[in-house]
């Protein structure tokens, strides 16, 4: 077993298998699933203009997010990853199953902390609130991104590169976690068998995460595994029916309003807060924080 896990793998094969899940799942899984969700909305008589325009806006925010991600990548992120890999890293790890499994688990753990930070500091919530601002819950909501969503993950993935993992493998693992997360954005799957619900993040756990019910705030940050939440005290099971969205709804399907509303609200809060230190604290204190 150890010999199998430790056997050196070919990069071409690894990239191929990651692409099957990371890239092609959009075609064979996510889009078909979204179509079924639309049919379900229709059957339940919930297919409204609001759902359609909300979904279109979600895809437009994805376009803006990808553009920002590419700009950051070309300007410095790729160079930074490789510079850290060659100058600030532990001995480089070979490409084998054990490295891949540990890298995906570390990427998932990094996702947990990145996600928790985005909820618990002002500037993080200013961008992540975009993702939570939809009053609906379907696959398209997974693609609803904020303007700084590409920036914060860097803080958590660079340390993984420093631990000796290949930067490309770290990026592939992060996308793997993100794609797994995408599949959780659905109301169609209720609860899965108990062992799965105990270990893995599921649609039920993620519905709780998107809930605006008070007991669901800041819960279930996990990506692939829910055990991180159980271990670190942020787990909440789905009991009460979930109300989606944020406590102060934006009531708009304008992609521009959706994409920038978090930063705009934060900017307004900073502007009306007195004192330079307090203005800075607005950025790093939790979203509900007010100066005395």
């Amino acid at each position, binding site marked *: 077993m150890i010999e199998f896990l430790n056997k050196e793998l070919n990069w071409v094969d690894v990239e191929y298998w990651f692409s099957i899940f990371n890239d092609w799942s959009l075609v064979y899984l996510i889009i078909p699933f979204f179509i079924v969700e639309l049919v379900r909305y229709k059957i339940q008589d919930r297919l409204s203009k609001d759902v359609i325009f909300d979904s279109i806006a979600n895809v437009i925010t994805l376009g803006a997010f990808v553009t920002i991600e590419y700009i950051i990548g070309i300007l410095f992120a790729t160079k930074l990853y490789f510079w850290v890999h060659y100058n600030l890293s532990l001995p480089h790890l*070979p490409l084998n199953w054990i490295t891949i499994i540990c890298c995906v688990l570390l990427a998932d753990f990094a996702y947990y902390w990145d996600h928790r930070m985005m909820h618990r500091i002002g500037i993080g919530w200013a961008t992540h609130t975009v993702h939570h601002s939809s009053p609906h819950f379907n696959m398209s909501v997974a693609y609803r991104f904020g303007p700084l969503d590409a920036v914060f993950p860097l803080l958590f993935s660079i340390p993984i590169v420093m631990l000796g993992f290949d930067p490309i493998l770290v990026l592939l693992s992060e996308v793997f976690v993100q794609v797994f997360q995408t599949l959780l954005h659905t109301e169609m799957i209720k609860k899965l068998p108990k062992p799965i619900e105990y270990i893995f993040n599921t649609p039920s756990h993620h519905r709780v995460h998107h809930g605006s019910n008070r007991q669901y705030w800041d819960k279930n940050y996990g990506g692939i595994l829910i055990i991180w939440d159980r271990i*670190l005290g942020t787990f909440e099971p789905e009991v009460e029916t979930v109300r989606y969205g944020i406590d102060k709804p934006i009531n708009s399907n304008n992609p521009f309003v959706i994409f920038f509303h978090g930063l705009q609200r934060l900017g307004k809060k900073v502007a009306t807060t007195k004192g330079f230190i307090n203005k800075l604290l607005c950025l790093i204190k939790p979203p509900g924080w007010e100066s005395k």
Partner: protein
Amino acid sequence: MSNIKLISISTFIIIVLAGIPHFLETNTINVSNYKEKEVVKEETTIKVSKHPLEGKWKVDYREEGSVMYQLKMEHNKLVGYSIKLMDVKGQFTSDHTKIFTLTSFINNKGKGIYSVAYKNKIYDIPCKLELKSSELYVSYDYYGYKDTEIWKRQ
């Protein structure tokens, strides 16, 4: 949960997840080193062990001619120089430009930094290596510029 508890648990998780592959890697190297030592011991009377990539390698660049490279140990590091540049007509000039530094090499696979000249500029590109009998596959992907060179042992 207190911050100290959060930090302690998180540090433990990171140490375990990063430690497992490093631990197994170290053990594998030890085993392969041990095996290598045994082989060297048997062959000490015949020849001194050297790095499997050391030697001269020739690469054909299709319409641009070919280049002869020499890989050798310098200060305990394997480095490469281009030593002969040949055009398509077969005319050659001597050269001594450092083009390569090996960073890791285990089980016939490895990584290195390959210095590629393009439009009078030198770019240091991370590359991957794979040794298959007398051929060395050097692959790189630099901002979409992707290629695999086949180096033939001379």
